[in-house]
């Protein structure tokens, strides 16, 4: 039994090596999300106040932290994208210009500022532009935890009844949008219009 212990490091190494190799060989498939086809978890969080951004005289100390509280009802009524981002995330910076493009095409995007600092988030939006209709400030990462966020960036497609229909982990770009999200988004939009009002 004692001798077996000595083989433990080797076994761990082999398992790790096989996993890495298997990872390299694996067919790139999106991982299934546990929350797909489930409603957005309940939350009540402040929205980041981005309206008072003033490039001329940025008086950071006197910025009001929140615009008000929002909850999961935010997603009811229209098809939206929920984009998880943070200023500490370099990949989010890469993704940012594409979000602006989507906004320009009329796709509504709600931001989830994940485990971040309000002031930094505001600076970021000031510097790179704001593609979001509204930004939820999730300082503690509570909503992120409920959503099962792996790391930023992540993007969720949410239908007009507030149910998550698709989850993309990683940078959203034109290829991902066209191949994975756009078809579903269009059909959801079409379905939404058919609904009796």
């Amino acid at each position, binding site marked *: 039994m004692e001798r077996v*212990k*000595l083989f433990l*490091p080797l076994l761990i190494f082999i398992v790790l090596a096989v996993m890495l190799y298997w990872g390299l060989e*694996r067919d790139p498939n999106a991982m299934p999300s546990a929350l797909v086809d489930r409603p957005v978890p309940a939350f009540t969080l402040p929205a980041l106040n981005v309206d008072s951004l003033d490039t001329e005289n940025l008086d950071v100390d006197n910025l009001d932290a929140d615009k008000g509280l929002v909850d999961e009802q935010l997603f009811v009524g229209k098809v939206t994208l929920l984009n998880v981002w943070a200023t*500490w995330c370099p990949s*989010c910076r890469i993704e940012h210009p594409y979000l602006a493009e989507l906004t320009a095409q009329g796709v509504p995007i709600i931001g989830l500022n994940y*485990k971040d600092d309000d002031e930094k988030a505001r600076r970021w939006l000031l510097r790179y532009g704001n593609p979001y209709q509204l930004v939820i400030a999730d300082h503690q990462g509570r909503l992120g935890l409920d959503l099962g966020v792996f*790391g930023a960036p992540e993007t969720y497609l949410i239908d007009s009844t507030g149910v998550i229909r698709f989850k*993309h982990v990683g940078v959203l770009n034109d290829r991902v949008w066209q191949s994975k999200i756009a078809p579903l988004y269009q059909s959801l939009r079409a379905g939404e219009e058919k609904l009796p009002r």
Partner: protein
Amino acid sequence: MTAEFGHFALILALCLALGQAFVPLLGTLRANRLWMASARPMAYGQFVFAVSSFICLVMLFLGDDFSVRYVAENSNLNLPDRYKVSAVWAAHEGSLLLWALILSMWTFAVALFSRNLPLELVARVLSVMAMIAVGFYLFLLFTSNPFERLLPFSPVDGKDLNPLLQDIGLIIHPPMLYMGYVGFSVAFAFALAALMAGRFDAAWARWTRPWTIAAWAFLTLGICLGSWWAYYELGWGGWWFWDPVENASFMPWLTGTALIHSLAVAEKRGLFRSWTLLLAILTFSLSLLGTFLVRSGVLTSVHAFAADPARGIYILVFLAVVIGGSLLLFAFRGQTLQRTASFNWSSRETFLLGNNLLLVVAMGVILLGTLYPLVADVAGWGKISVGPPYFNWFFVPLALILAVIMAVGSVSRWKHHPPAMLASLALWPALVSIVVSAGVLFIHGYSFALLPLVSLAVAAWVVIWSLRDWWRKSSSSRGRLAGSRRLRGSYYGMLLAHIGIAVAIVGVTLTSHYSEQRDLRLSPGEAVSVAGYDFEFRAEERIRGPNYVARRGRFEVLRRGALIAELNPEKRYYSGGGQVMTEADIDGNLRRDIYVALGEALEEGGAWSVRIYVKPYVRWIWLGGLMIAMGGGIAMVDKRYRRLAQTRPRSEAQAGVEVSGTEQQITEGSGAQQQRNG
């Protein structure tokens, strides 16, 4: 011709390394002393050829030989000479050659300073180091040859070195880091030699210790330099980003720290032996992983891997052979037979065990955070950043707990230290450190928050325990001076390193929690006040450097109306590659840094976006790092290691061991163990 000479020298170095890898090892199997003795001359020869090859590459850079592809890609005519030299290790091929050069330097040093070690051990150690060298030479020659020519169409001028790398920090940072990484190969080679021989006694641990401490001290310096460089060169005002490249150097540092502590236990008490060997293997494996992953660009993008499959496959196979092979040897030859020496739960052994476990857990957390985005990327889950929140959330509490037990552990006794005695020792430092911490926050007028309060208290706790221990140990009937001289170099090294940790904790805490920063729009003539300092933007001017033009802002910093500094941040435009660089200007002292960087020009000849930071005590971070490295340096040259190394390797039952300082000595007699207070 220089390129061909360099290439040829590299091939000769490979041939000698091949000889050195196998002849002495066969000698140990056949008890052939001549074969074993051949290890040293071959190590000297390998060193000579590795140095020659490296010098050739340096000369190619200095002589602007753009017919060599590597030179053309990383240098140009306008580059100042000192950067031409540092450009040698600015990219993949050259930094691998530097790695191989430093490995041959360590091999040379081991061959030179091992006169007093048994020939068998020397033969095995040098063989193992040569095997690693063979791996590197083959990788260089077959996939990453820095001497490859671009013929017949050589460019007239080169592309220029990445401006980020045109900096004094980058001249010395990689060599320091590599001295650390590669230095752990010595501990690794000693561990494999011990496994081959089936013998790892107190003498083995004593021989391994100074080498390991040396490598660790270099790595500490390397990490500090890297952090300092990021701070003043990147223009973001941060000093640590939990970036994969930083993590790659931090992981071997953590396990290396665990290793130097477990070596102490292995030497003095004969415990934790298999664990020590495993740590030596782990530390060097992480160094290798760091080198390859960082340099191959795999960590930033898997596509770098795919771009050159030959390199990728070679790296994977090499890592598998080195790590898998050494772990296989460990599995078959590692002895589970621990000495029966027992220790109470309240003892120095327990504290050091706690230290080892916490350090390894911290490493595991960082490894997971570093590799996870890579795994996610190869598995097609998309690109993900695991950000600082993850690392800070796990690492900060671990580091604080570690510092708390470090202070107690370095004072506690081997085998058994009655918990009641430790508790009575702990009472007043606990109270005083909380008061000191609150006092520091109060005097500076900082807001009270739990984390800074706790962190500062931990730092004070470490300093109090360390200094009190020194005060007690240095008391002597012949006076304080005589008493403090009597203490060993290794004790002072430990003291300095531990206080260095406290100093770094103070720096990290105050900077992280109480820095002030502003991003502003400023035109020449305007002024702004940040954290009690007035910044006046006087003028903007244009200047010309050797290979760039720059726009420079002139800022005057006033405190209560008195001028305290003039800062000149620059925005540089490099002609070679067309890159733009932000050169921040910093006025710093031990109490605070004032940092001004130019962002973007908002309108021609007028307003700039300006970034201003006031960072309290930020230099303490690097001061602490320097103290830690110096502590390692002092401990390494302790005469004890040399004196004992000269005696014949005694059987471990007779090995006399000494405990920190001279207060307590534990003598392990044959079987019977007794403790006497000296």
